[in-house]
């Protein structure tokens, strides 16, 4: 049972345009959703998070939107830069500081 799904394994966008990465989840008990970015040969690094009581959180070029009724969230990167090229993981966790359940990841390529 895959509780967190990223249905697009890859995404390619032009520099300066918007990148939209999507994530769906099945467990309505998740309280927090986090996005991590991963470069090759490195561990995931935290990017942005959102609480289940919010529908939007913004940090610079990165915005995460949460649609709780659809159990869907998305990460928007505007404008996209070549340095954003990486694998992006969506993760979900409960209220306590327990495990995070990760999606499969989406490889973003931003072309100059």
């Amino acid at each position: 049972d895959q509780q967190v799904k990223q249905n697009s394994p890859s995404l390619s966008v032009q520099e300066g345009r918007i990148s939209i990465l999507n994530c769906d989840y099945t467990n309505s008990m998740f309280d927090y959703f986090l996005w991590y970015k991963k470069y090759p040969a490195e561990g995931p690094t935290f990017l942005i998070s959102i609480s289940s009581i919010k529908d939007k959180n913004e940090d610079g070029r990165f915005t995460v939107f949460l649609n709780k009724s659809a159990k869907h969230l998305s990460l928007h990167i505007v404008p996209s830069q070549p340095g954003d090229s990486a694998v992006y993981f969506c993760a979900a966790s409960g209220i306590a500081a327990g495990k995070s359940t990760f999606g499969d990841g989406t490889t973003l390529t931003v072309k100059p």
Partner: protein
Amino acid sequence: EPEVTQTPSHQVTQMGQEVILRCVPISNHLYFYWYRQILGQKVEFLVSFYNNEISEKSEIFDDQFSVERPDGSNFTLKIRSTKLEDSAMYFCASRGRGFGNQPQHFGDGTRLSIL
């Protein structure tokens, strides 16, 4: 900025041998985790550790796996009798005090290759 460090970066081991993967979490963090990522697959949770005991573990974390925080700084993952399917990247992570919105800080991983 403090970071999580993992050693070795690459470990090659014969099938059936024991292997210990080492991690030094961020010093004031309280929660510790191991994840693995088989090549081309998703990051999978193995185990979480808090207050000197396992707080949660996945189905993957069977009797061949164990974790230990022997000296208050290191956090180790031991695989007792390795199998070919244990070949993967193993990531250690740590998290400070707070709720589930607190991000985990990951090390750069140990690539484990079982021959």
